[in-house]
């Protein structure tokens, strides 16, 4: 495979470089998502109470397990950058691929904006804790510095970027474990967890609240499917991707359950539901300086790891779309020395930063969740078409997920329920955001598809699809 540069030629064979292993895949997936345990998931408590939130956590966990199963099978077979976008090209067609590419870019860019917004707030919280006057610290220079450093890391090479992600994600995960162990065994703090005393067994809004909390239940896991973006850069795709994705999913299920357990046992639900950084607050009420500092570091690292992973994934999706001319070819260039999609990386950074700086946090999160959900809705379509066009044993699959079609049907049903939850939360705002994707689709069909080389969209060495 060769890369297409801005002038439309194929002058060289500079490709993305295959240097990643399963730990990097884990670091990419968990790194993007773990911030969801440090902030965001708790809005599901506001929607349905603490008990409603843990029910949503389990049900949405099932949704993501289906996503991971389907993704692992298709990605272990379609080893190319772009993840689900490249899958869509091979199973469904160009327009669907264009939309899936946009879901990926927007879900990750918006999530990155939310990450850097939270990072700025954590800087402010820390400076005020150290004695600065409230409201006097401008966190924006720190945010800009952090984003620039992450962009540079991604520009210089994927191996170092994801190795750093592995380290800081591991520290963040470790901080959750330490907090739970400290509360459970009375280390650093004499405070017990008090689920019963905090009334965690009730559903303040009944089952309607449980349904509504699905909206932010997604935040526990949003982005794990991003592991597929590394497909073109892992050494052994068939082994590393399913291994990294499934261990990542297991890590997140554990982290989500522990996070809920410790926060629900230490914070009143009305507070927990609106907190900016609930794990940090849980450490705060423990009264232990060690835990407070550790959880502040964990929260900062999780935000940086997520932003780092989002830069990586959004750029790969944007790059892939440029390479296929779904977007301007200018973005399809690979750095001759560092072998990274550097133009896509540099282009998307100021966009994410501007979303963060414009204080558009609520619509940004809405857009990120909606884009993720649309992408999950595509996956059952993807799976049915993949198995229909190339039944088992017609092509070599790195991994075959069990129980087909049950995971696809369960995923479709859970996506429908989550759309209702998002409607309950965002109302007709959801419809307004759908207009974006509809207008973009019409634009692609009328003005963009003419630049696309038809036969080049199918790059896998597979036989002709059944029925075509």
């Amino acid at each position: 495979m060769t890369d297409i540069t801005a002038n439309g030629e194929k002058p060289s064979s500079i490709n993305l470089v295959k240097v990643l292993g399963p730990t990097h895949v884990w670091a990419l997936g968990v790194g993007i998502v773990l911030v969801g345990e440090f902030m965001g998931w708790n809005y599901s408590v506001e929607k349905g109470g603490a008990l409603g939130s843990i029910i949503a956590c389990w049900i949405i966990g099932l949704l993501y397990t289906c996503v991971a199963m389907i993704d692992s099978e298709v990605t272990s077979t379609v080893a190319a950058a772009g993840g689900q976008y490249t899958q869509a090209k091979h199973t469904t067609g160009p327009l669907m691929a264009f939309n899936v590419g946009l879901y990926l870019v927007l879900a990750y860019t918006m999530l990155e904006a939310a990450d850097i917004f939270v990072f700025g707030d954590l800087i402010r919280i820390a400076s005020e804790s150290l004695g600065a006057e409230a409201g006097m610290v401008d966190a924006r220079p720190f945010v800009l510095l952090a984003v620039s450093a992450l962009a540079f890391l991604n520009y210089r090479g994927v191996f170092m970027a994801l190795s750093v992600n592995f380290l800081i994600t591991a520290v963040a995960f470790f901080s959750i474990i330490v907090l739970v162990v400290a509360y459970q065994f009375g280390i650093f703090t004499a405070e017990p967890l008090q689920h019963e005393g905090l009334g965690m067994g009730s559903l303040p809004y009944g089952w309607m609240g449980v349904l509504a909390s699905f909206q932010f239940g997604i935040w526990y896991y949003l982005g794990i499917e991003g592991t597929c973006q590394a497909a073109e850069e892992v050494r052994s795709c068939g082994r590393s991707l399913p291994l990294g994705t499934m261990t990542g999913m297991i890590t997140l299920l554990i982290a989500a359950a522990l996070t809920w357990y410790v926060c629900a046992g230490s914070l009143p639900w009305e507070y927990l539901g609106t907190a900016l950084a609930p794990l940090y607050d849980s450490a705060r009420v423990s009264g232990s300086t060690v835990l407070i500092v550790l959880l502040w570091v964990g929260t900062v690292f999780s935000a940086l790891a997520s932003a780092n992973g989002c830069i990586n994934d959004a750029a790969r999706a944007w790059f892939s779309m440029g390479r296929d001319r779904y977007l301007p070819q200018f973005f399809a260039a690979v750095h001759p020395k560092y072998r990274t999609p550097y133009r896509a990386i540099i282009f998307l950074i100021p966009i994410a930063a501007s979303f963060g700086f414009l204080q558009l946090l609520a619509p940004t999160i809405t857009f990120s969740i909606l884009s993720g959900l649309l992408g999950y809705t595509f996956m059952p379509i993807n799976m049915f078409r993949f198995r229909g066009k190339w039944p088992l044993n017609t092509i070599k699959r790195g991994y075959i997920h069990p129980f087909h079609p049950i995971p696809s049907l369960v995923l479709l049903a859970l996506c429908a329920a989550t759309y209702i939850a998002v409607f309950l939360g965002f109302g007709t705002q959801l419809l307004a955001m759908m207009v974006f994707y509809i207008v973009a689709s019409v634009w692609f069909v009328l003005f963009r598809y003419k630049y696309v080389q038809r036969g080049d969209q199918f790059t896998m060495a597979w036989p002709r699809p059944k029925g075509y």
Partner: protein
Amino acid sequence: MAKYQPRKQSGVGQAFDAIFLLVLVFLALLVPLEMELAGAAKGDWLPGEMKVETATDGTIVVSNDKGLIKRTAPDGTISFENLTWEALEQTPVMQAQWGKLDMDLETAAAAITLRYDYSFSWGGLIATLAAIAGYFAFLVWQSDREYRQVIAEKFGNGS
């Protein structure tokens, strides 16, 4: 099948397309805010039997059967009468945790006495779900037409 030769796009055209998409994204973020489209909103809530009245000066007065009263003035100022932790149904454990979060009774009460109202329009829900279903149906239909062109060019006509 003759191989389709796509047009080459000029640099200006590429810049225009990138900017067009960016503008579209910003519009999608800002228009819902400008149009004040919203979903479930929080409203006043008190434990027990609740009564809501509007005073002549526009103040919203919410009271319950235990004598707790919440007043929200037109300028948004909130005040309470007969406010106690017990009236808010907060257990001693909850009270202690609010204290550790540096939140006094009044501040905590402002958070506790707001709850979501999940009533919704069936018409809006059906329209939204129909739009999503229609959007995916169009995507699959149009993509399939394009996919046949891709396969024909890649593998030649005929199966």
